[in-house]
């Protein structure tokens, strides 16, 4: 099966060492690592936020060459920040993700993320959790081939963490792929594959169960699994 995402030698000076990455269609991949390990840098490099070395090929297309009109259907990048300056209505903000107006799609997203009640309110006036959902809806709106999400589960209450994970699973079943950075490593079990970043490199690429038990994780986070959960490494 051809990869949906093929990244070769993607690097950012000082923050990300040359990295190769392959993602299959339909895969939901977690990206974990301690603070400053390069998770965000990898996502940003793949999304083309910064000009990086190396090549990023999405569904056979070189991402660097895709014009602005094409990009929303190729990839969606969701940054970690929830700040909004302008008082744009929720439904209009979601519509910004679309190239062409599509009220059916917007209605669908409003429903999935339970934003109908606030659809006509300025998104900048909502709570952080609501804003997180609005911004996620914007990222999902154009149904891109590749989702690059930076800590989408932060600021969400447990109900919405589970709902979001379910929504992401549903989305990738349609054939796209998602690379999701996480802070809470206990959530990796919902994913197909887990990448561990440390000091600007991917140091491990394992299934969720294997990752949680791995020595690489223990070394990177300086924690270890004990009988009743995680604890700080003694060695």
């Amino acid at each position, binding site marked *: 099966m051809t990869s949906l995402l093929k990244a070769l030698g993607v690097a950012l000076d000082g923050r990300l060492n040359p990295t190769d990455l392959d993602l299959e269609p339909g895969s939901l991949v977690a990206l974990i690592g301690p603070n400053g390990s390069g998770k965000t840098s990898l996502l*940003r490099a793949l*999304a*083309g*936020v*910064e000009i990086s070395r190396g090549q990023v090929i999405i569904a056979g297309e070189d991402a660097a060459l*895709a*014009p*602005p009109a094409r*990009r*929303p259907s190729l*990839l*969606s*990048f*969701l*940054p970690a*920040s929830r*700040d*909004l*300056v*302008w*008082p*744009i*209505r929720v439904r*209009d*903000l979601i519509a*910004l993700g679309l190239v062409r107006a599509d009220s059916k799609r917007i209605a669908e997203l409003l429903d999935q993320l339970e934003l109908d009640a606030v659809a006509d309110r*300025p998104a*900048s*006036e909502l*709570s*952080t959790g609501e804003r997180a959902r609005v*911004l996620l809806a*914007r990222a999902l709106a154009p149904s891109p081939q590749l989702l*690059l999400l930076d800590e989408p589960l932060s600021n969400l209450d447990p109900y919405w963490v589970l709902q979001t994970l379910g929504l992401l699973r549903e989305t990738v079943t349609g054939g796209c792929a998602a690379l999701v950075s996480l802070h809470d490593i206990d959530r990796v079990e919902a994913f197909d594959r887990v990448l561990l970043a440390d000091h600007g490199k991917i140091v491990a690429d394992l299934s969720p169960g294997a990752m949680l038990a791995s020595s690489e994780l223990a070394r990177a986070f300086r924690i270890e699994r004990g009988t009743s959960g995680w604890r700080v490494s003694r060695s």
Partner: protein
Amino acid sequence: MNRSIALLSAALVVLMVVHLVVPLAPLLELRRTDPGLATLLLTEIRMPRTLLAAGYGAVLGTTGAALQATFANPLASPDITGSSSGAALGAVLGGYWLGISDPLALAAFGAGGAGLALVALLLLAGRRSDSAALLLAGVAIALAAGAATSLLLALAPSPFAFYDSFEWLMGSFVDRSLAQAAAALIPAGLACALLARRARALDLLALGEDVAASLGFPPRRVALEVVALSAVAVGACVSVCGAIGFVGLIAPYAARRVSRGHPGRALLPAAPIGALLLVVADLAVRFAPAGRVIPVGMLTTIVGTPLLIWLVTGMRRTTTRRFAP
């Protein structure tokens, strides 16, 4: 939104006609006694004034909206970012010290001055800085450029230069020629048309710089384009009419009401709104008490300052709300 723009444009045309024929009495009298001269009065004196008032207002609206979108700050505007003052400095340097009289060349000097001021702002405050940093840096630049302009005028070879300073620092449309109007409005119009094409990129900036970059609109390049085009448009207008403040702040604010908060889509309605504001302001100053000349920029500042204060206090309230859990 299109209906609102159509309505605004219609209102603008009506007010421009009013602006053109008022004061009516001298015009009618002249039409009775010397119709040829009456036509010349309209075409050579009144028409440039009306065109400049409307055009300059439209430029202030459009560039204000573009700067606010680029700096992600509802307080950015040509005057508060210091670009209007920089333009006046450039024009005064060219006109009074380098002896340049060609309106297009002066427009270029104005554009250069405006551009330098905006570059200084980017260096001082960065692009996505908070309101305080932006306001302080912009006001500092505006004050410095204004003081330098006054100094250049005071020391200029011509003894009358100093008395011209209130026209440079507070604006005037009196006795501007059609050639000057063309030298200002043609480059400014082109620059604003190019700016309007950036509407989508500026809307996407509302989602954050990273998202905009990921969608193919690198924020740095967009910012440089906006800065360069705004400098050309503002510089050309200031080189003919002097610096006029607050229209570039208020018009985009009203325009975002029309565009439902979208900063990029607001560029289009900001033009007729800015034009309306400035035409009305220039109409108002024509009825100043006898013997006194009130520069149009003084009126816009008097009306605009309370609005600015209201905007700032409104922003503070929103900020506290935004960080609520």
